[in-house]
């Protein structure tokens, strides 16, 4: 079922736009519930670097949320690294070195 529905790879901007900018969880509670459901179903994830970036730039509320959802953040496995490197090779100007 997971493969058919796809898995979302979330970056820091997703979390910032959701919680810190446009849809704060104290106002848009149902959105948080839906995302919680997706996390529970294994339909979204983020690499641990995202959590560290949230810790670096995020709001206190977002940082606390990320801490309480540590299972969402997955380690940088060799497979993920290879996928990332392939994207960098295809789009060399994507990153400012």
């Amino acid at each position, binding site marked *: 079922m997971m493969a058919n529905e796809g898995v979302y790879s979330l970056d*820091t*901007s997703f979390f*910032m*736009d959701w919680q*810190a*900018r446009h849809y704060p969880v104290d106002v848009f509670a149902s959105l948080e519930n839906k995302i919680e459901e997706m996390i529970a179903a294994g339909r979204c994830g983020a690499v*641990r*670097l995202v959590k*560290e*970036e949230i810790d*670096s*730039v*995020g*709001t*206190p509320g977002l940082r606390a949320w990320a801490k309480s959802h540590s299972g969402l953040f997955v*380690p*940088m*496995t*060799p497979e993920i*690294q*290879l996928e*990332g*490197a392939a994207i*960098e*090779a295809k789009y*060399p100007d994507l*990153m*400012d*070195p």
Partner: protein
Amino acid sequence: MTSMSTSFNALVNPPLLVWAREESGYPPELVADRLKVKPERLLAWERGDLKPTVRQVQLLAKFYHRPFGVFFLPQPPLLPPIAGEYRRLPGVEPGAESPELRLALRIMSQRRQIALQLLEELGNPIAEFETSAHLLEGPNEVGNRLRSLLGVTNEEQLGWTDEWEGWRCWREAVEAAGILVFQFPKVPLNQVRGLSLLKFPLPVIGINTKESAPGARVFTLLHELTHIALSVGQEEEPALGETRDDAAWSKVERWAEEAASAALIPANVLAGFLGRMSVARGAWDVPLVRSLAVKFRVTPLAMATRLRVEGALTWEGYDLWKAGWAEYLKTLKPRSGGFASPVDKALGRGGRPLAQLVVEALDANRITAVEACRHLDLRFEHFDKLRAELRDRARSTHTIDDGE
């Protein structure tokens, strides 16, 4: 082991490890020490004989101030040498800058690029700094021209409540003239007090935050402004292209000091004060020079230099005064510092023009919140306060504007 991610090896491209270290100017031993590994292990990573862990690459990225992903690029980026941007700095050999200075230069160059990109993205006009200076001109003449360009009036200057207000007003005037003014930390003062990036449009002046006295920062600011005007006049090149010997370069530096001094302390206003004070040429002591310097919100040393140039102090008197001033400085307690909020620091580091651009671009959805935070090195929770600060330009005159 701090997390699961540490157990995975990082599939980095070894030449990128070498590139990042050499670009930062660090020897292998220092990096290895920072990562708490043996130098042989670091060199084995760089040769590709061993792989570092993901955690170790994260630490390297942080230490080198590079994105984590840079180590996975297929080949090292081709970047122009940084010495092709900054003006010649006494005692700094192009290509052999200290790691701290290289980092400061790279950050300031990046900030300039960000400003240019955001200006283009927002469709805003880019101010052109076109005022030139020539070494055959008199420093007084050039100083007056720069002062006139900046639009700081005598009445305004003499009315400032303290040196911090003077620093902010001079900085804003220079920024309004089409120059970005940044502050950089962690570089020892004996390496460099200030510098310029001779890139047009939007040249950059960098001020070392270890310069604790705001009056000294003002002098450095005007000194660098003079160098930029000399560059516009094609009298000087970036460090990589400068061919003058040390003696010839010292003359350029002295000329720039005199022009900066003339811009800060106009001859006619100074003459008025000197007429009223009636001090004999050999009678200038520390309290007298300090009393005059405080009126212009400049450092006593800058004032003494100006008095010498104007002939109110002989060279001998100037040297004696400097010796007395050095003794006086030894009696002072170290600077206690002050509290600077994250917003104060961000504004101090990057200046109001850059902060304004970043906020505008964020609010227009031209950049992400993460980019905005990165550009200003500021957490998102402080952005509302930043917006308020940008709206309210009349700030406390006692705010510490360190950028550190």
